[in-house]
């Protein structure tokens, strides 16, 4: 199974790299999602795949001899929670940026770092979205 998972990991990272390098912010969000899922997959792989016994101690026993590695699940759950909140924040940010800047194209977003040849860009650019007063 490992080679298949490793291949899936590689494909996901490649897809994510392609999407993140896009100029469209929507694709960037999707790329970040795929990338974080690839990271989760790599944690799963790092814990080794194979053992089918769940890591639960049966009633009356005090320990189990062999079981699946429970730690990757805990790590992945933590990572999922974190990436969930980060992506939720990112979506809210991109959505409000879209509303205020009127574009989804990162190349067209030059508010923070204006080009040298257009110093007064904020005044010159046609306002696609009205600024709130």
């Amino acid at each position: 199974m490992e080679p298949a998972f490793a291949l899936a990991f590689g494909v996901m990272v490649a897809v994510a790299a392609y999407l993140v390098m896009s100029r469209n912010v929507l694709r960037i969000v999707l790329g970040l999602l795929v990338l974080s899922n690839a990271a989760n997959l790599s944690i799963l792989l790092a814990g080794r795949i194979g053992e089918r016994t769940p890591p639960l101690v049966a009633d009356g026993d005090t320990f189990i001899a062999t079981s699946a590695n429970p730690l990757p699940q805990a790590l992945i759950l933590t990572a999922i929670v974190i990436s969930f909140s980060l992506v939720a924040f990112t979506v809210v940010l991109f959505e409000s940026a879209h509303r205020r800047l009127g574009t989804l194209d990162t190349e067209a977003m030059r508010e923070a770092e204006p080009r040298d040849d257009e110093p007064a860009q904020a005044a010159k650019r046609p306002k696609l979205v009205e600024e709130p007063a």
Partner: protein
Amino acid sequence: MMNAHLLLTLPIAFPLAGVALCAMLWAKPGAQRIVSLIASFGLLLSSIALLAAVHDGTVLATQFGAWPAPFGISFVADMFSAAMVLITGLMAVAVGVYGLVGDAKAREQAFYHPLYQGLLLGVTGAFLTGDIFNLYVWFEVMLISSFGLLVLGGTRAQLDAGIKYVTLNLVATTLFLMAVAFTYGMTGTLNMADLSRVLPTLENQGLVTTVAILFLVAFGSKAAVFPLFFWLPAAYHTASAPVVAIFAALLTKVGVYAIIRSFTLLFDGDAGFTGPIIGAVAALTMVTGVLGAAAHFDIRRILSFHIISQIGYMLLGVAIATPLAIGGAILYVIHHIVVKANLFLIAGAIKAAGGSFELKEVGGLYRQLPFLSVLFLIPALSLAGLPPLSGFWSKFVVIKASLDAGHVVLAATGLVVGVLTLYSMLKIWNEAFWKAAPEGAEAALKSWRNDGATRVAMLVPIVTLAAITLTIGLFAEPFADYSMRAGEQLLEKSAYTDAVLGPRSLAEARP
């Protein structure tokens, strides 16, 4: 005498309580201010207690939840991390007081205090944790708080900057997470002390070096080194003055801390390969940063590029990795945090008194405010490395270490970049303080003179930090001595691993 559990918990508990209580009181900005200041002072006091306990070379460790290492999550304080926590506490108070004025009302509407405490929580946790996955979690706590702080005002420039900042930092932390996964796959452990013992015993050392480079890329993005720094100059200058001051003081330094920690404790096995890479990165970081600064006329953008350039000096120490060089890097980090935060605080004061961050729109401040001018010169000349200020000694140690190790090119780069830094600082001096005031600058000056509360809240932190810079410069001996011993402690890994795992090596006990 407090026990180790309490000493290691309090610096984390204070900002956590700050986040929690400020979030509960989200509709009452006045109460949030008090809570936030108390939490910051608590962090400062508990970090002083922590430093007092470890300054003689002892390493404190605790296992949260009493799960024994290496299975539970360890928290460790050695001389290096205790110094970093102390400087964090100092910045928390200084910037916290500064942040009470200016656009404080607008910031507080936008959840400023909980995010500010969240940032401190993430930074402190990252300095104290002894578990590599837990380090990732603290990075994320720090990151999400910094996202919120960056876009606090919701202006167009901040949203644009936020997109770039968020995207590049998310990619970097995800790489960090993957590197953690690979480390776990190789070793079956995440405890840094345990990793330090297990990693050299692995058969496949090539894989260890590969993962080390992956960590270097991830931490390097956080530390804003060449060529991974682009998020920093795209974002920092859009945030408000206290926010950018605390960012400049702490965020990149957590990346530097992580690089120093991982390349002394974990990945020192292949220094012949990683050393030259870090050295080249350090030199290029110094040069690109200082050249970027030369091109700009917005004070905050100049200072942002200088953060990058200064990170290079710290990495120089890591690249050379002699006790003197590591000690120099530590001294550099401590000096730099104070100086850089202070420069951004002064930039905020220039904006308040002169009306703008844009150098072409301000001037004549020396005639009007000679006191502020002197206050600017102290951190500015220290940043450039002029004696007898703190920057001189830290540059001196780092460059001496590189000469001792025979890295003449790196040392020469450091000296030239110091001169170019002086050029940028003099540019700010000439434009903002020396040249005649432009038309229409009187309004801002008048409001500065009339608003006593703003003056006091801005100048007290600036004076305090300038005094610390002078102290490090004039009485360098104890600071240098502490840094050198901290550096030796880092390279002598047994103190750290013994404190966490006990003297018996678990690596030996493994089959």
